[in-house]
């Protein structure tokens, strides 16, 4: 299949609007060709995952775009950077890396991106309409955008995202095409206990299991009607997108493209796998990488905590003093809400370090590189060992709080039996 461009797209590619735009069009059209797209599709918003420092190359590319006069054509938010510019959490980057990370963040702001600096832009006011085509990066944001909002995006990698934001176009393939959004397999949770399905700690585990099964396939989860909340869907998607290449998931009766089985499957028969307690426990065991019960630090907030989750943390701490470092990663939008609720000071006095604009797994914030990190996030559990050197224990937010008070692992097993 060959790629057909409109006359306007051909002019942009030829440099009609400058070399920055031409570069963006080259990257987009080449990607379109590689992925077998027949045309480009207009997109109405973008979320940029490319502003996190991984080495000088990303900074050099961003500054190259700025020098070429890059300007954005559509509303665009920013995912996390490598520095906390809002709450001042200390990043232990050496001076050169710190400087390059800062330059990178400023370069993306200079192009006109909104300085949201969050991996949960959908909780910071960026919520594209159902059925609209967008270009988002960051695997959890992509999963939420497709699955919960019903907008359409592929998993746009770093750098393609900013090219889409500059041109207001994306290659038309994959999840932009309605027929590709149907479920081809189902996981059935109806045999699990209602109390488990209704607990926050269940959702990253079933998300992990879903991601392992899915790979790049689209699936639907049955038996969770009435159990989902926005933060649970957020946690599910982040875990699924870490364990697999999940850009879209469906929860029957909860997500907008899955009102019933016939709709979400397009009327096709699909294999239905019953989820057993044994499968779930295997997925849960895989989220922890140690049997060690001394806890050295706790991190929550991947994806970034909502204001509701921060207020829940405040309630769970209940005026006690945490004895272990406790990092709550969040966006400046949620910090502002926490301040408006008058609870920021209490949370910090209890021993919580608020980390905004970034998180402890993408940039060196944690002290030392040895020990056990407890988390309620399937995504942190997946990435923390490789990125931070910490071993991981997975548990509910309440269990994270109790463990941070006592310094020893506190975890309730009864729910899972």
């Amino acid at each position, binding site marked *: 299949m060959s790629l057909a461009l409109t006359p306007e797209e051909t002019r942009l590619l030829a440099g009609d609007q400058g070399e920055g735009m031409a570069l963006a069009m080259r990257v987009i059209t080449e990607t379109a060709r590689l992925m077998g797209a027949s045309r480009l599709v207009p997109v109405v918003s973008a979320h940029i995952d490319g502003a996190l420092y*991984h080495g000088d190359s990303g900074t050099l590319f961003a500054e190259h775009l700025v020098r070429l006069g890059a300007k954005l054509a559509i509303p665009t938010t920013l995912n996390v950077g490598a520095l906390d510019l809002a709450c001042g959490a200390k990043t232990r980057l050496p001076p050169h890396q710190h400087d390059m990370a800062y330059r990178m963040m400023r370069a993306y702001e200079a192009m006109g991106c909104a300085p949201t600096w969050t991996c949960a832009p959908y909780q910071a006011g960026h919520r594209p309409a159902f059925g609209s085509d967008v270009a988002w990066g960051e695997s959890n944001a992509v999963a939420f955008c497709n699955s919960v909002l019903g907008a359409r995006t592929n998993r746009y990698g770093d750098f393609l*995202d900013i090219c889409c934001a500059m041109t207001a176009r994306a290659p038309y393939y994959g999840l932009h095409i309605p027929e590709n959004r149907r479920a081809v397999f189902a996981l059935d949770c109806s045999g699990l206990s209602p109390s488990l399905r209704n607990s926050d700690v269940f959702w990253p585990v079933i998300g992990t299991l879903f991601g392992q099964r899915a790979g790049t396939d689209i699936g639907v989860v049955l038996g969770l009607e009435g159990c989902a909340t926005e933060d649970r869907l957020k946690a599910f998607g982040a875990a699924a997108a870490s364990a697999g290449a999940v850009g879209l998931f469906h929860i029957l009766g909860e997500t907008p493209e899955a009102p019933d089985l016939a709709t979400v499957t397009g009327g096709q028969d699909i294999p239905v796998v019953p989820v057993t307690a044994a499968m779930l426990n295997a997925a849960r065991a895989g989220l922890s990488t140690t049997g060690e019960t001394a806890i050295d630090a706790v991190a929550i907030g991947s994806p970034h905590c909502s204001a509701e989750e921060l207020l829940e943390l405040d309630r769970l701490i209940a005026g006690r003093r945490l004895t272990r470092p406790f990092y709550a990663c969040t966006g400046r939008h949620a910090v502002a809400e926490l301040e408006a609720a008058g609870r920021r000071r209490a949370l910090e006095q209890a021993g919580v370090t608020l980390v905004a604009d970034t998180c402890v797994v993408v940039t060196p914030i944690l002290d030392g590189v040895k020990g056990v990190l407890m988390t309620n996030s399937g995504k942190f559990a997946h990435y923390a060992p*490789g990125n931070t050197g910490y071993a991981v224990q997975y548990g509910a937010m309440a269990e994270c709080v109790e463990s941070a008070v006592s310094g020893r692992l506190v975890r309730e097993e009864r729910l899972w039996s």
Partner: protein
Amino acid sequence: MTFPALTPLLPGEASGPVLQLSAPLSFWGGVDPATGRITQVRHPDCGRTIGGAILCLPATIGSSSSSAVLLELIRLGIAPAALVMGTPDAILMIGCLVAREMGWAAPPAFALDPAGQALMPGAARIDAGGNVSPLS
């Protein structure tokens, strides 16, 4: 013995040891951008280095920042010699496309299904047409 022919995605020639990953990998959170070493502790090939290898990936998963990790490996001269992918993955190939825009030499990319990947020799030369010959 005949070897499988690869489908060129981003054309080019490559030679080097063949590293066949036995499980899907996310470059971000899975490969150290400063050294090219696999750091994902749950990955069966954790500890191996991908620099200079003809890297056979059955599938890619996870982060959309994998393109940024690959771009950094390319800039540092420690990228794989070639990417051989079970399914063409846009995220990784964007790392190569941006490298070319920056004037940095990017590895070629080829498509080959996992069954074909299993037939690759231990070290190989791949020509621009995707033909494989073993390196002794």
